Structure formats: structure tokens, C-alpha cells
């Protein structure tokens, strides 16, 4: 509605014919984009489509080779981030830039200090303005709370307040809901709607099709550096947007068919695991995964899932409790022993546990098997065998690269994940552990990974899926366990689960007894 009324005004922001070339690639190719005052405009595109480059140009971190930027109809040259900020363009980044030990007020003031006099900060005035801003957009913020003690959803609000404090007229939000629960996402959307009503323009960058359809007034889709389509939510749907983003029809929900769970493969009993600081991260967790079944662990990141998974795969010591694989006690097994027992691991942090980025794709493919035949004869590596396996893996799992000798850090995020998958999936597996397997990936890669997971399930592998993406859990899981503060607070059936119910359990932990469906838990 806002767009009809404001149609005659000059757009708050217009980027015309923006072209930016880097050696070997045209990151932006004649991009036209405009955002009207009071509009929420979504920018949709795969990884590597050019969204980041475009935003860097807007924020003054890069200069376009061609094209111009207009603010309120006037051409401007943005020389750097402080210039952008002074012109009212503010970015809220995907990775928060907050100081945890500072208060909310101190974080907001950082870089835009309100001074009572040349020496001292005017904290009172700052607090007043912060409270007023908060009230205007519908939330009660305590300027003296320490940011480190706030939930992620509230930290997100502090980031937004930072922008507003600087009289932002144009707010650019980069993947703002990546770390939020469904409830928190709704709350942030409310804030954004209010901001729009009060005349702020919002540029919303996202991967998530359903969110974009819900919040945006207009959607611009970028692919390979070009604008490939502009849509109004009421005239489009997820399938249409996905096809625009990827360039072909994309199956958004893979048909998961029927699963036929058989014997128990993984049994975790009364497991206690500590985090890096020695505090209990996993508390008395009981879990069971059967062959041919996908157990999804739902939970907001940081509730013990990573520690649980690391303990199972052998990367982390267990404080007490047992882990059994097909009846055998594997609690003390390290990663290589687990690998050799038929367990595969796709880690949440692929740059840390999954890949050695400076090494070639081929070396990464044999990372867990380099020491045994055919890749090594005793002490000596057999490069012929490695090359053959690497070429086969790259082809079979569609890793887009000119050569298997290229270093892994030349691959895009999606292809890096496919590389991890190529290594982990390509053998008979007893248990597959997937931890945030599609985080940061584009729609095409997500489809691919989900298909592969279903394939493994149908081949009889037991699959443990950990994800903060509730939709992914709901799409793939036969059973869902919700983790909250280190405990499994509920176990529900995957097909009949209610999204809101599970989301609530993720956010609050629920009441453990009532949430368990007795028919499911005692199976």
C-alpha cells in the first residue's frame, strides 16, 4: 500500500547501472535498484550473485566502475563508511559488531559519541534518546544492560538502534534473521514494519524465500551480477523466486517418501559433556537413532548441540555417560576410529573441522583416508589414486571447479560444502552426522544436500541432523528432539510436528513432561 501512495516521490535510494569488475569476474553488471521512502525492499540472490559487492559499493567500501548512486534524486559519491553513515545509510551486519562487556548505551555511542562537553560523554542524554527510540519502535530497552547478557534477538535490536541513533534514513539489513528463532523473527519484523511506517527505507538482504515474501513490499532478484527480476510478493511465490535465483526450476521441498527405520544404530545414554570453559554443555542427554531414520535435533545455536555432536564423533571428551554404535561402546573413540567404524561428519564450522582451505580439493577429499590404501602405500602417498578419486568425487557431487588441484578456498560456500559431502558420503555409512549442513548455502546447494541426505537414509544409514533452521528439521526429520540448555526437552514425531510448538520449545524449553508424546518417546 505504501508504494502506491509514494509512487510520485523520488526514491530515497537509487542505484543506476552499477557495474563493478574484479579480475576475472564481473561482480555487478548494470544493476538498477531503487528503494522508496517507507518501503521494505528485499534483495534476493545466491552466494556469489553480487549482493555483497553491491552493498559494499553502497556503503562506500568499493567504488563502481560504471553507474551512479542517487539519494533523494541527487547523485552522490560515497567515499567511505563514515560518509555513508553521515548521509543516512546504515548497515546492520549479519555478524553483530557489538562489544559484549559494554552496555547497550556504550555500544550505541561507540563512534557517534554524544558529548556533554569536549571531554565527557553525556550518558544521561544518550540514555534518554535510546529509551525514546526504543519506545517509538515498540520495545523497551534498558540502556544500562550489558550487551553480553542479552539474547540474540535483543542484540539484533541493539544493532538496529545503533543505526537509528545515527539518524539512519536507509537501513541495510544483511541476513538479519539468520540467528533468530521464529518468534524473534516475528518480533523483528514488527520493528521493521514500524520503521517503514515512519518513513525509513529498508533494504533487506536474505536467502529465506518465505520471510522475504512475508516482510517485503518489493523484491529484486540478482543472479550472476545482474538483476533478473523484480516482483511484488502478492504476485509471486517461493517456487517462482527460487527459479529466478537459480536459473532453473528448484524443488524446494524434496519429496522425502517413506522411511523404514530398522535397528538402533546410535544410542546415547546419560551423556554429560563440558564446553571449552569447563561448564556443562550437554546434560544427561538420552538419544537414539535407527538405521534408515533421520533424527532432527532442533534448537537455537548454542544450546549444547555442537558439544553433543563433537562428543559423538570423538572430537571432545565426555564427562560421563556412554555412546554406543551398533551395540559397541564407542565413548572413548577418537575421530579416526569413528570414521573407520562407518561414521561420517559434516561439521557446522566447515572451515574449522571440515576442510583445510589452503590445500587442494584432492587433498581435502582424502583428508580422512590419506593414510590407507589405495591413497598410500605405507609411508608414501599414491598421487595417481588420489587424483582419480578426486576427479570422480568432484564429478559425482557437482563441485564446480576448473580442476581438482585448485585450493579449496577458491570454491564458493556451497561448493565447499559439496566437497565435504563428496568426502563424507562416498562410502557405505552406518551413521551420518549433519550439523547445520546448509547454513549460508544457496537454494540450489540446499536442494542438493537434502536430496543426498534422503538418499543416504534410503540406503539404510542412520542420520543425526542438527539444525537451527526449523524448516529444514521439519522437512527432513522422522523424529525431532528439541535441545534447550543442554537437555533434550522434548521428542516429537517429525511429520505431525507443529512448527509453532517446536519453535516455542526451542526458545523457552517448554515443560519437558507434557511436551513428550508418550507414543513416540517410548518406542
Amino acid at each position: 500500500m505504501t508504494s502506491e501512495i509514494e509512487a510520485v516521490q523520488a526514491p530515497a535510494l537509487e542505484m543506476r547501472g552499477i557495474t563493478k569488475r574484479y579480475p576475472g569476474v564481473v561482480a555487478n553488471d548494470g544493476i538498477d535498484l531503487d528503494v522508496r521512502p517507507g518501503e521494505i525492499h528485499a534483495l534476493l540472490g545466491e552466494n556469489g550473485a553480487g549482493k555483497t559487492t553491491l552493498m559494499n559499493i553502497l556503503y562506500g567500501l568499493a567504488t563502481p566502475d560504471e553507474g551512479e548512486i542517487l539519494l533523494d534524486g541527487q547523485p552522490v559519491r560515497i567515499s567511505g563508511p563514515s560518509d555513508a553513515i553521515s548521509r543516512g545509510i546504515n548497515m546492520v551486519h549479519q555478524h553483530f559488531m557489538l562489544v559484549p562487556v559494554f552496555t547497550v548505551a556504550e555500544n550505541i555511542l561507540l563512534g557517534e559519541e554524544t558529548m556533554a562537553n569536549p571531554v565527557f560523554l553525556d550518558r544521561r542524554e544518550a540514555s534518554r534518546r535510546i529509551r525514546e527510540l526504543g519506545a517509538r519502535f515498540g520495545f523497551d530497552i534498558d540502556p544500562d544492560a550489558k550487551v553480553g547478557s542479552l539474547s540474540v534477538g535483543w542484540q539484533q535490536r541493539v544493532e538496529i538502534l545503533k543505526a537509528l541513533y545515527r539518524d539512519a534514513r536507509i537501513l541495510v539489513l544483511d541476513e538479519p534473521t539468520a540467528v533468530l528463532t521464529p518468534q524473534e523473527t516475528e518480533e523483528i519484523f514488527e520493528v521493521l514494519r514500524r520503521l517503514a511506517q515512519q518513513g525509513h527505507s529498508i533494504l533487506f538482504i536474505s536467502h529465506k524465500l518465505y520471510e522475504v515474501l512475508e516482510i517485503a513490499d518489493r523484491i529484486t532478484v540478482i543472479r550472476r551480477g545482474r538483476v533478473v527480476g523484480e516482483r511484488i510478493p502478492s504476485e509471486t511465490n517461493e517456487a517462482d523466486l527460487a527459479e529466478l535465483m537459480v536459473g532453473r526450476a528448484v524443488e524446494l521441498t524434496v519429496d522425502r517418501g517413506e522411511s523404514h527405520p530398522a535397528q538402533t544404530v546410535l544410542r546415547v545414554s546419560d551423556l554429560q559433556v563440558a564446553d571449552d570453559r569447563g561448564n556443562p554443555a550437554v546434560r544427561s542427554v538420552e538419544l537414539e537413532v535407527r538405521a534408515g531414520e533421520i533424527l532432527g535435533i532442533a534448537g537455537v545455536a548454542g544450546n549444547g548441540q555442537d558439544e553433543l555432536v563433537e562428543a559423538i564423533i570423538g572430537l571432545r571428551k565426555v564427562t560421563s555417560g556412554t555412546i554406543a554404535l551398533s551395540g559397541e561402546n564407542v565413548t572413548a573413540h577418537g575421530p579416526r576410529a569413528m570414521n573407520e567404524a562407518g561414521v561420517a561428519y559434516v561439521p557446522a564450522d566447515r572451515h574449522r573441522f571440515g576442510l583445510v582451505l589452503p590445500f587442494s580439493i584432492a587433498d581435502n577429499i582424502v583428508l580422512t583416508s590419506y593414510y590407507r590404501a589405495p591413497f598410500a602405500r605405507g609411508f608414501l602417498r599414491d598421487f595417481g589414486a588420489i587424483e582419480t578419486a578426486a576427479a570422480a568425487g568432484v564429478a559425482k557431487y557437482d563441485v564446480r571447479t576448473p580442476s581438482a588441484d585448485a585450493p579449496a578456498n577458491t570454491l564458493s560456500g556451497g561448493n565447499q560444502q559439496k566437497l565435504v559431502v563428496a568426502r563424507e558420503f562416498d562410502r557405505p555409512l552406518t551413521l551420518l552426522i549433519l550439523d547445520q549442513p546448509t547454513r549460508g548455502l544457496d537454494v540450489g546447494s540446499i536442494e542438493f544436500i537434502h536430496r543426498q541426505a534422503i538418499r543416504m537414509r534410503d540406503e539404510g544409514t542412520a542420520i543425526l541432523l542438527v539444525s537451527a533452521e526449523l524448516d529444514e528439521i521439519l522437512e527432513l526429520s522422522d523424529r525431532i528432539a528439541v535441545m534447550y540448555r543442554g537437555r533434550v526437552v522434548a521428542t516429537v514425531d517429525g511429520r505431525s510436528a507443529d512448527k509453532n510448538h517446536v519453535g516455542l520449545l526451542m526458545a523457552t524449553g517448554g515443560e519437558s513432561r507434557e511436551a513428550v508424546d508418550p507414543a513416540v518417546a517410548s518406542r
Partner: protein
Amino acid sequence: MRRLWTVAGLPIVSILLGLVVGAFVILGSELLLPDHEFSWTLPITAYAALIEGSIGSFGAIVNTLVATVPLVLAGLSVALGFKAGLFNIGAQGQFLMGALGAVAAGVIVADQPPIVAIPVAMAAGMLAGAAWGFIPGILKAVSGAHEVVTTIMLNYIAISILAWAVSGPLKVPGSPSPITNDVGNAAFPIVIGDNGHMGILIALGMVVIVSWLLNRTTLGFEIRTVGANPDAARYAGMRPRTLIVLTMSMCGLLAGLAGTSIVLGVTHSMTSSFGTTVGFDAIAVALLARSNPYGIIFSGLLFGAMRAGATLMQIEAGIAPELIDVIQATILLFLVAAPVLQRVLRLRGVSGGLGATETITRSYGREAVS
């Protein structure tokens, strides 16, 4: 050609700039000298003498080769450490202990036939160096103690042990100054010219062995993986702790071999002033070569040539040999400041400075090792 520029561009520019700075230092020193007639061409005279003294005659070339041997061996020591994510500043101490081991054993077997004496003295030198590398390795593996701190301390300890040994147990009885006996038959045979000893062949051989180890063996793969990403190494079933101890010991062995080569190849005994700066030059040699074993041959030759030519430079141009230290240090400075260099000089297409192949620092404490 373009590939060469990408890989060697920064080192080459750093070398050229180092020489330029050296020239300015020479000019500056002229201004400070009383009764000296200022000459713009003094740097040229000096560098010409440097070149002549290093490659201007057959004898000069042999001198250069001899000076290169310890630099290559110690350079390999530092480079191997870098590949594993370790900064082996302790090459100097390992070098000294290796020399001490070689001389101590050499003196004992001095009268044995060379076929016995040489291997025994060499083995003693390598073992002593390896032990001096083992210590910081095990400390890091067990407690996370950063090797930069421990190896620097061990350098000092090594210097003191050396001084004690040469003035005490190993001293020639009745000698006015601290000097050990001659190593007799443990001395390296000459293979080229008047003084080109066997160490030249050993150094070349070690380059081949280290390169083979790193690139063709499973152990080398494990070492490089621990250096590139210790977490992924753990997932791959490698044991970072064991690899750190093993690698540091091998680094010690190589640096010890460097010390051994000087004692058995050049001096044949040890005095309390035995202490060239080989261990520290080796760091520059390794960095300049980007930790590539074959590249170390070239960077070692460069530094070796400068050392060999320094004497003639002093004679003909009156420039103190310490100028070589200035030039080498400046080259290292420019190499480390690569990003600044790239921007100021607008160098294109060169692969980025040190981060590309070495780890100069890794986090302290337990988190680094598991």
C-alpha cells in the same frame, strides 16, 4: 614468467629495496666519518667488491658455497617448523648444541678412521640438535607453552653451555684461551676447491629429503595439515601433539646439522667465540624462500654470497661486514611488511606476503593443542 613473478615477486622486490637501503646506509656513514672525502660512488664500489668477493673467482664461488651450507641447513630447520605452524626461533640454540655435540664426539673419535669418525661425530651433532628441539616441542605439546618463548630461552642456555664446555671440560689442557681439541679424522673431506667440504653435498641432500618428506609422504601431509588447520587435523585422526614433538625434534636435527657442518667442515675445533648468527639468518632465509626447500637453496646462496663477499668489501671499500646484517635485516623487514609494500609500490599479481605460507603466531595456551 608471470608465475615466477607471482611467487618470487615480493622476495625479489624486498631484496632490491634492501640493497637500496644498504646504499643509503653507506652514504650516511660517509657523512659521519671525520676526514673522509664524500664519494657518491662508494656504494657501487662496495657492492662491486661484494660481488667480486662472492662470485668473482673460482675460490670466491667455493667460499660462497661453504658459507651457504649452514644457512641452507638451518633454513630448512626454520622452514620445516613453519610448515607445521611452529616458529622455530630456536634454530640458533639447536645449531650451537649441534656444533657442541659434533666437536665433543669428534674429539673423542679423532684418531679413528674417517669412515667411523665422521658418521659418529655427525650423529652426535644431529642428536644434540634434535634433543634441543625436542625440549620446546614436548613443552608445547604437554602444556601449550609457546615455542617462541621457550626456544629463545633455550638459545641463551645453549650459549652458556657452550661457553662452559669450551672453557672447561673440552678445553685443551694448558691452553691460554678457551679452545677445544681438533676433531682430527672426523673432519669433512674436501670435495671442491681448497675448502669446499662435504657439507655442500649434505646440504643439497637434505633439501631433497625435506622436500620429499613434506610433499610425498603421509607424515609430511600430517605435518602440513597441523600447520594449516589443527582442528581439521584432529578430525582427520592426526595427532597434533605427537606431530609437534616430532617436527620440533626434526627441526633441531637440521639446525644441529648446520652447526655440525661448520665444526667438521670449516673450523675443526671450537672456541668460545663460536657463534655466528646463522640461526637468525636462517629465519630470513626461510621466509625469503617462502619455506620452500628448493627456494631455500637460492635464498641461502644469496645470504651466503653476501657473507663470503663481505671480507673483500671491507678491504676494498672500507665498509664493515656488519653492513651485511643491516641489508639482511632490511630485506626481512620489507618481506614482513609485504602488504604495505604492495600498496605503496602498487605491485600487482604478487601472491600475498607471509600469511600465505607461514604461521608466525598461533594462539597461546592449551587451545592451540589438543
